[in-house]
């Protein structure tokens, strides 16, 4: 029997994975307009994200029984389809790599500063590889359990900071930012949203395929809505400039919590949320990368080769990366590559694919009817 997942599990996965980025390095604060209007940028990015990812949604609705790799082969033919599929598989692995390096650096900087990096990487990779090895259904079931815990912790931590809130730090609204700044910021923020690929890769496993549109809307509104709240609360507690100086603004916020001298020094609780969300993010990208390569190489779920190979590559790359330089400080150097990959694989290729679909729709329908 083919494993199935529910729409709730998928929304939980997409929300938690996006929030993992927000509570670690919070890239939001380093995009224009770099001032108190950042939360408006986050809200505006909900609209942009919906627009930018619309081609992927369209294709997902048209090929409800196939993953992205599957319909690429149908539309472009086997050879070209597989080459593009390989690119996507590598892109998913790159996302897993980004998430794992961030998590490793975060852990080694903030809690386990004396622990050798290789131990951190090995610990994380074994967990992720084990999680992925249990298959799609088990992985998503674990997300359904872990996501509410992680998100609940984040919400509670946000409430605990109430003593430090200085609401005037949100003022003046939209006076220091130009319309261009805010829109450019929202566009740039949208480029951090790679979670749509979970949907495109996991559609075949979805128990109710009519929920695709609902999943799409919820999985963008929920994480970005929560991100706007996180940004507002960190901003009114720390101030914009203080946040911008920090590598981990959410950690800094949690360190500043002192609720009536009863609740303080609760960084470890935030670390629990970090680890949970980051492991979910790394595992999820590794999972869809494995699914992509299995489909390209025509392997089924019993395959025991692809996951260990990709896991090993991921572990070596992560270890090499965090041993050689600070990925957090130098991540700006790779921003252009990240944006190019996003534009190419999230906007350009899906739009081209849509165009090919319109041209080949008739012949496809004939083939399918035969």
């Amino acid at each position: 029997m083919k494993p199935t997942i529910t729409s709730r599990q998928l929304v939980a996965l997409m929300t938690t994975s996006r929030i993992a980025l927000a509570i670690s390095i919070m890239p939001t604060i380093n995009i224009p307009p770099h001032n108190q209007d950042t939360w408006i940028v986050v809200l505006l990015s909900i609209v942009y994200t919906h627009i930018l990812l619309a081609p992927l949604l369209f294709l997902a609705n048209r090929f409800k029984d196939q993953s992205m790799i599957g319909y690429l082969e149908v539309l472009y033919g086997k050879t070209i389809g597989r080459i593009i599929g390989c690119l996507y598989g590598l892109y998913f692995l790159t996302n897993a790599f980004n998430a794992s390096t961030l998590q490793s650096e975060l852990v080694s900087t903030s809690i386990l500063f004396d622990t050798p990096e290789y131990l951190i990487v090995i610990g994380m990779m074994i967990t992720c590889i084990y999680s992925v090895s249990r298959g799609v259904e088990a992985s998503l079931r674990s997300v359904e359990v872990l996501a509410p815990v992680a998100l609940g912790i984040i919400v509670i931590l946000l409430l605990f900071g109430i003593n430090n809130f200085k609401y005037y730090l949100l003022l003046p609204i939209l006076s220091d930012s130009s319309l261009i700044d805010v829109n450019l910021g929202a566009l740039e923020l949208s480029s951090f949203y790679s979670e749509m690929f979970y949907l495109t890769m996991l559609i075949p496993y979805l128990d109710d395929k009519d929920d695709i549109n609902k999943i799409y809307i919820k999985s963008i509104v929920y994480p970005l809505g929560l991100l706007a709240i996180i940004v507002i609360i960190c901003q009114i507690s720390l101030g914009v400039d203080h946040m911008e100086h920090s590598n981990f603004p959410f950690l800094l916020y949690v360190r500043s919590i002192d609720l009536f001298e009863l609740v303080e020094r609760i960084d470890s609780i935030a670390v629990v949320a970090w680890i949970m969300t980051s492991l979910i993010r790394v595992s999820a990208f590794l999972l869809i990368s494995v699914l992509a390569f299995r489909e390209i190489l025509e392997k089924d779920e019993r395959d025991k080769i692809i996951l260990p190979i990709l896991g090993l590559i991921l572990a070596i790359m992560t270890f090499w990366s965090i041993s050689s330089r600070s990925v957090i400080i130098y991540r700006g150097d790779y921003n252009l590559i990240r944006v190019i990959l996003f534009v190419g694989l999230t906007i350009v290729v899906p739009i081209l694919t849509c165009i090919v679909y319109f041209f080949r729709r008739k012949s496809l329908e004939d083939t399918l009817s035969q």
Partner: protein
Amino acid sequence: MRYKSIILSIILIIAVLLSSCTSSQEIEDVGIVLATGIDMEGDKYLLTHEVIVPKSSVSDKIGQGPNVQYVQSKGDTIIDALRNASLVFDKKLFLAHNRVIILGEDLAKRGIGDIINFYVSDVEPRESTLLLVAKGSPAHEVMGIKGGLSDTPGKYLFDLLENHRFNLKARDLTLNEFLRYFLAGENVVVSTVQKIEQKEIDKEEEKPNRTILDVTGGAVFRKDRLIGYYTGDEMKGFNFLIDEFENGLIIFKMSDEVVKDNKFVARSGQYLVVEVKASKTKSKVELVEDKLLLKIDVNIEGVLIEDTKGLNISSQAMLEAVRSACAKKVEEYIVRTLEKSQKEFKTDTFSIGNLVHISYPDLWKEISDDWESIFPDLDYKINVKVDVIRVGLINTPVNIEIDEERLKENK
């Protein structure tokens, strides 16, 4: 089964290795720092740390022997000085429980931008650590003084700063708050501490005087440099201006005219005291005839907690007079602080520039660079409203005779 056992064993081994044991710091291996003093000696930093002595390691009985030790070390940077301490002290200094950082006056005048960096960049020190300036002395001179019931001098100083809420003649400012203002380009007022001599009352003590600490006042910074001090009363005005005045006392006088009809049965004094129960200050900046005007509205609810003058507070007119006199005093506190800030320091220590930014963002873009030259000439208008909502447990002061007619009316 065998395969699963191997995997399980590996996971267990890794779980042990990653359970923070590799970064653990055993209590007997560290010196827990409670207070830090930072001074300059030549071009080197001189750090003085108050380190707690674990009771178990004191050979004497509990209650005897010192609770703390002091460790001094020098270095080119803060971390250098901190690590150099390990050359003269047998435990590694552990900063996670440090409650206060005291800056020597000379160091504060020189600027503190370079030293703050370490305390916010390193994981061990907490951002909730209180920051203060040793008024008129190096930091290490105000350390090691224990004038209260707290276990250690560091805790004594910390508790004094926490007590500021009972009188509002001081403030407590954490590293985090300092950075919030400083990084936003605003000037900061930091807590102060100085040592004072008091007559020794305990006849068993040999010395005639005892040294204690006093945290009255505030240290005014322009950017990261100390430029002067506010006195205790000026700090009251400051706390009103930044809307952090609750539980503080307003001590004011009233003319003798108000008690001329009273029949005194005992001596009367000069002062009345209102304890503020709730206070809200709303400040805004308006552009009036092309000139900025700062409007400060203060609303206070308080309790007439002490009356040395002997007022007949049962009359509505008298209560009104009390309100008016109290409001006048609050205005006086605020004017005094504002004047000192404008005329003496020529520095905006109340983030009024931020009010201009919020109300007139376009204008702020034009004047923000010159704000420090505009601020000293800023006009202001203060409006204080006081409600005395309680008068304590008595209806007539004990030094005046009860008005029998009024009692009958009240019946």
